[in-house]
């Protein structure tokens, strides 16, 4: 039986998964919305991956998880590697574009820039404290303008004269946008203005002080928005590479890391049929009241975390 490796990337908005072989070839890949329920999203994800995957020929021998729910899903899937999304993205992307020097990534709830030189990460930054200029913001504004978010970019592309919109902060951007709508600016111009605002916000905040050199790869859900891609090209004066598997780069990286770890842990797609229960409970042993998370599989506790000290350690 040949080996395969599964990478799962559970973000705030979307959940991604890939299965690769020993040569890092993608055997199966899937993308779906998290919808605020990471457990359920992963269940659906695995069912769909299973359909694309030839279980008679290969077995998944190791799992890697990344994204903001990596710890929880890592516990559930008995992952060999639980890795932050910056490292996972860098690893995944350098395996697709070995010469990449700059990675832009704008996801649902966060955005990051990764600078690489010769395939090694030399610098990175991630937005802090604020979700301005991320996918969630664009989705909200698309809803306000009554435009499906998938068409947002195409509509923006029809504009010849993007409306200036404040790029500093979502609150300012939103009030700007409301005013522009009310004084009669066209939807095309507003969409294009918003794409530009997102890009300026990104370049002025997240990418501040970073040396942006080509080749530049743009990833994350927002990279599917052609209006934002065009705005990036205009502002940086560089070609922006967006590839069709760009949204899977994090999961791809997690799968590669799982393979590299050399650790093999049994994995079975039947995990989707198991009963998982997650409880969050205040510890109550001191005024800090740590929120202790326990994960149960078929009634048996498999992992727990959240306690700051030993007193709060969950008993199995």
């Amino acid at each position: 039986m040949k080996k395969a490796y599964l990478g799962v990337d559970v973000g705030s908005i979307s959940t991604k998964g890939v299965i690769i072989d020993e040569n890092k070839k993608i055997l199966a890949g899937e993308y779906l919305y998290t919808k605020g329920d990471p457990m359920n999203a992963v269940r659906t994800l695995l069912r769909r991956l299973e359909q694309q995957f030839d279980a008679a020929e290969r077995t998944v021998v190791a799992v890697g998880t990344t994204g903001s729910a990596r710890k929880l899903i890592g516990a559930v899937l008995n992952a060999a590697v639980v890795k932050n999304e910056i490292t996972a993205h860098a690893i995944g992307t350098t395996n697709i574009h070995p010469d990449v020097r700059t990675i832009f990534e704008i996801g649902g709830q966060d955005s990051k820039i990764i600078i690489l030189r010769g395939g090694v990460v030399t610098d990175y930054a991630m937005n802090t404290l604020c979700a301005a200029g991320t996918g969630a913001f664009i989705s909200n504004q698309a809803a306000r303008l009554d435009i499906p978010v998938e068409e947002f970019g195409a509509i923006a592309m029809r504009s010849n004269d993007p409306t200036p919109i404040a790029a500093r902060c979502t609150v300012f951007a939103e009030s700007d946008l409301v005013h522009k709508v009310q004084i009669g600016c066209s939807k095309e111009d507003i969409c294009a203005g918003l794409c530009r605002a997102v890009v300026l916000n990104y370049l002025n905040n997240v990418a501040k002080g970073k040396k942006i050199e080509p080749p530049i790869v743009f990833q994350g859900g927002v990279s599917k928005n052609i209006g934002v891609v065009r705005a990036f090209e205009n502002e940086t004066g560089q070609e922006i590479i967006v590839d069709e598997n760009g949204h899977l780069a994090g999961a791809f990286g997690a799968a590669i890391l799982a393979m590299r770890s050399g650790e093999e842990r049994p994995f079975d797609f039947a995990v989707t049929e198991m009963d998982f229960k997650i409880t969050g409970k205040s510890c109550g042993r001191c005024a800090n009241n740590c929120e202790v998370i326990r994960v149960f599989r078929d009634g048996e506790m498999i992992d727990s975390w959240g306690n700051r000290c030993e007193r709060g350690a969950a008993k199995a």
Partner: protein
Amino acid sequence: MKKKKQNEPKRNVSFSQFGSYNLLFEYFITHGLEQNYVRPPEITKRTMELGNRNSPDFVCSPFKFTLGCFLEAIEAGADTIVQVGGVVACRLKYYGSMQKKIIEDLGYDIRFVNLAEASREDPRSFLALFRKINPDFSLVKILRTGITVVAMLEALDRVQLTVSKNAGFELRDGDFDREFRRFCGRLLKSPNDPISVYRIYRETKKNMRAIPTDVPEHPLRIAVIGEYYTVMDDYSSHNIEKKMAKYGMRVERWMNVSHTLLHYSAPKRRKIIRDYVQYDMGVTTTSNVGFALECAKKGFDGIIQLKSFGCTPEIDAMPVLRSISSDYDIPILFFSFDCQNADTGIETRLEAFYDMIRLKKEAQLKSGAPERAAAAI
């Protein structure tokens, strides 16, 4: 007259949690001013919520933390609160007067001793404040205890430095932390003279040397800089030094009370950084930028800046730090903390930072230059 004063009940004095420095206040209040000391409870979410609820929304987080500590200390029986302040050019200068007003507005009848009202140029101004705590204090005892406390401060900071540098390499989890806590307990019980303090210090150092460690040939050396309170207080910094230790990083932190109060030469630091900064940007920026530059020149693997959200002087230092980062090719990670609860975002960034500097270092060690070593990874 004198006799009557001595019959006055002792005051219950308290100071906020601040790293491990609370014990120095305790020692000074009990031995020097001969009053009772009320230990503020450990900072918890409740402390934070109390401070948050009663503070202006946009004030820096140390204000909220210290206010929360005061309120909990008052609940625990404190009737006299001491707050620091002083000559610095930032909001800290107004902490005392603001907090006094807030506590009074909440209806508490306490005595508030604001050290910002005293000046280092005029030592007598401190005596006026001491008199507020104990009108009948003994100058001899104050001087004697003062010397002991300065010795304790030196010892405490040196031991703390040893812990920061080495905790990442201990073979048994928590060895350094346990020894540090034992040391703090012993300091509190120490006889009132610097020799005894020195003896405790020496024994602790000896014990720490005996802790089994495994230091790699090329450990990752990280400089930690930032805003005064957040850098030194574990709760405020989300235990970042402990998290760093888990990754086996060697933490080098210059910023502590003894360094800034007793061993800091602003002209010297200004000279070191004159290519980057021509004037002071307030409080600790000159010393932070100076230390960051020194570490960059020494070939450290990274710099981490910690600050409370909205700390203006430290924000001003960021462009300078970015220049140093690009000139010396040393990665820098910025953290701004407020009163957030979740650690996940901090862990994500710290883990990514660790991965980055580790891979970079491995590549450098392999061939001397990251560009050439790349193919190997």
